[in-house]
């Protein structure tokens, strides 16, 4: 546990990606099984002790610290695990036995029941120092949040043992923590785990942003980028599963999709909900809002299946009848996908259409119009591209729509979490519900916590402190004097906001100190952008 705690702390203090990779890689090389496997599970978010929750920790602390002092401390520190680790009373008696290893901690925690969880956790906490307590709580509650993606951990694994990261990704999904077979394969003491007979997630191929690149449409094909969620549908041995971007299984939320594929195949597409907004002519989809209703549900009612039926707009075909097509060029995979379509249920699957254009200028025009139909943008795929995991230069590009921009007024600020916990960094902003000179009011239209530089953050924090007119717990109301230019992707109707509108992906684009608040935008402008 001491090594794992040291790893967490070093990772937090090492900003560079390469530095992080090296830290994880050397930890994986130098730590024995099964500890390194459990650490890897924690880093990739693959471990969970359901009886130990953040509320278990808060409960333990409530017995030991005054609630006001706890919340002031938590507010300052910005992290529950860290606050608890700092406030945990040091045991009176000296620790004479070495604290448990990560593997021993796993054994102890997995035996805990809902009833015994508090006592199990507290007696473990008594055995560690501050850093160990922090690591223990992070580990036990399964919420590391230290800025390490599962992908980074896998790259580090590949780097640690000199194996290809694509292989790691591929074998990963068939393995369970502490990944003994994976480590055995990586260090060369066992053969590669078999994956072809398992309904496994295959890592998605991703696109680079196009930015200023100009490309030749004789080599690339253009396709819509739909505003749903990217999914993979896998059918092996009669078992069908639906996976989302990170490889999380979401079959249970979309039983109509899982039930619709009965051919042994692996398909890549966009999950959408029937409606009239997206791609109306081709049998349309609803806006992203409608899809959101369906996400993360453990059970789906009949009514929901009727009201918001899901379907998948297919982009690609990875495996068919046990034949891995990923090495083939895109054009060949596309040909086979088109050939497969008649065998698929048309209610659940359709084909993402190719946009027939001759050059980028023509495509630019089509793309500009696409905003209204809530399409995220355009994909450009090299006709010869194999299907490879992750982003590979020169193969796929995404050409997103330009963001929309609007001037809003800062209304409320709240302290951030994590790195920004001691700064006011969550900003609620509003627009005027009429002519501000004729007594109109500001109504909140969105919340943003990114888009600014560290320097701008310090400016904003100072502004909030100097312009506070009221405090409501952690929230400060400002004097409504500062204008932001907010960038966002689209606007939707929202019942939760008094203004009746909500932005998608709002971020602070620019601070407009030059602009007086009464010149900020009115609600009607935003309403006109509703899709």
């Amino acid at each position: 546990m001491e090594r794992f705690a040291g790893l967490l702390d070093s990772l937090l203090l090492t900003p560079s990606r390469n530095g992080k990779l090296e830290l994880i890689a050397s930890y994986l090389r130098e730590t024995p099984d099964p500890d390194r496997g459990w650490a890897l599970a924690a880093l990739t978010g693959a471990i969970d002790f359901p009886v130990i929750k953040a509320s278990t920790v808060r409960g333990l602390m409530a017995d030991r610290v005054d609630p006001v002092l706890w919340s002031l401390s938590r507010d300052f520190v910005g992290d529950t695990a860290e606050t608890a680790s700092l406030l945990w009373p040091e045991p009176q008696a000296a620790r004479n036995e070495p604290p448990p290893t990560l593997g021993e901690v796993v054994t102890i925690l997995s035996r805990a029941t809902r009833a015994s969880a508090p006592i199990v956790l507290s007696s473990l906490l008594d055995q560690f120092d501050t850093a160990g307590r922090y690591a223990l709580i992070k580990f036990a509650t399964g919420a590391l949040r230290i800025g390490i993606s599962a992908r980074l951990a896998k790259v580090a694994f590949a780097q640690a043992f000199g194996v290809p990261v694509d292989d790691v990704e591929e074998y990963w999904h068939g393995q369970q923590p502490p990944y003994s077979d994976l480590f055995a394969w990586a260090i060369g003491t066992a053969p590669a785990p078999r994956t072809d007979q398992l309904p496994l997630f295959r890592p998605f191929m991703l696109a680079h942003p196009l930015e200023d690149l100009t490309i030749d449409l004789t080599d690339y094909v253009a396709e819509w980028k739909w505003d749903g969620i990217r999914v993979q549908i896998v059918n092996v041995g009669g078992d069908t599963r639906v996976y989302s971007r990170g490889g999380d299984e979401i079959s249970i939320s979309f039983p109509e999709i899982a039930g619709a594929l009965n051919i042994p195949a692996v398909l890549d597409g966009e999950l959408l909900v029937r409606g009239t907004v997206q791609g109306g002519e081709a049998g349309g989809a609803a806006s992203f809002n409608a899809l959101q209703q369906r996400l993360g549900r453990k059970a789906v009612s009949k009514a929901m299946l009727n009201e918001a039926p899901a379907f998948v707009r297919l982009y690609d075909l990875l495996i068919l009848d046990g034949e891995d097509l990923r090495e083939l060029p895109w054009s060949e995979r596309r040909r086979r996908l088109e050939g497969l379509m008649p065998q698929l249920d048309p209610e659940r699957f359709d084909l993402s259409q190719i946009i027939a254009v001759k050059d980028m200028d023509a495509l630019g025009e089509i793309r500009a119009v696409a905003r209204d139909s809530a399409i995220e943008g355009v994909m450009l795929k090299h006709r010869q591209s194999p299907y490879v995991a992750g982003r590979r230069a020169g193969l796929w590009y995404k050409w997103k729509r330009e963001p929309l921009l609007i001037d809003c007024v800062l209304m409320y600020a709240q302290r951030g979490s994590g790195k920004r916990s001691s700064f006011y960094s969550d900003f609620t902003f509003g627009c005027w519900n009429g002519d501000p000179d004729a007594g109109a009011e500001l109504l909140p239209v969105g919340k943003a916590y990114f888009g600014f530089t560290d320097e701008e953050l310090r400016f904003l924090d100072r502004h909030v402190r100097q312009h506070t007119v009221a405090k409501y717990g952690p929230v400060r109301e400002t004097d409504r004097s500062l204008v932001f230019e907010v960038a966002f992707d689209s606007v939707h109707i929202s019942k939760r906001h008094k203004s009746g509108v909500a932005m998608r992906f709002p971020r602070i684009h620019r601070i407009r100190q030059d602009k007086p608040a009464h010149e900020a935008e009115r609600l009607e402008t935003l309403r006109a952008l509703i899709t």
Partner: protein
Amino acid sequence: MAGCFTWIKADPMGIRIVPADAWIDPSRPVERALITHGHADHARGGHGTPLATAQTLAIMAVRYGVARGTQVAEYHDPIAIGGGVTATFLPAGHVLGSAQILLEHAGERVIITGDYKRSPDPTCAPFAVTPCDLFITEATFGLPVFRHPPIRDEITKLLAARAANQDRCVLVGAYALGKAQRLIAELRAAGWNEPIYLHGAMETMCRLYETLGIDLGDLRPVAGVPKAALAGAIVICPPSALNDRWSRRLPDPLTAMASGWMRVRQRVRQRGVELPLVISDHADWEELTSTICEVNPAEIWVTHGREEALLRWCELNQRKARALALTGYEDEDE
């Protein structure tokens, strides 16, 4: 005994002693100022006749030039400051020359702590616990999460990091007045007798400390020393220089920061340092609260810092307290 302390007023620019027409640590120039210690947020230039300890006056003279008139306060020596008020400067244990100020008037005893700490510091006199009716305290680290470890542990960490990185140098960010000298004195006490290199901004204060009788051993300016000669060395700079262009002259510096804030990870990340050293010139939570118990005043006022938590503690312990919310005190680098 305790009354209503109407002769002491908390004004946004400082604490005013009404009958004496004098101020404590005012943020703007005034005719008559009592200064607790030399940090720039407490000791400002331009006062008419500052009253402070000799060391504080010496620090102020280095920073602002010599004032028109000054008056030296000896520790424990009562001084009549007019209007029937007596002021006694008492050691605060914060930095060299730092003082709490005991004011007596109309049968009431009021102590203004300025900044203080209770943990030992070889570069200044220890905090003198003194009974009073009204205790006006700082609360820079007024949250129960702040527990400053023994400084020896942090010095051990620093020396271990140096030993493990012989081809690099350890660059420690430390506030130029007080923190830097304490760090150096503790390094000497731990047996580090090699030269310690200083950023230009640290030199004046270190020399002044030496003049005032604090031995800091072999100190050398880092300017002009070849890069290779600094491998394995300890270099001290102001926190602001840790990540700026200046540090490029050093051999792959391992950056460290000596501050009480280093107890909290997110603060460490904001600083971007590799080696956080929890070393503070201020009282931690335990010291703040136990000092109140020892002094046992009838009433507590909190000048600056995380006052909400300390007020809550007072409430839980049935102690009468209020926050003054004085502005102008910076505590970021302390």
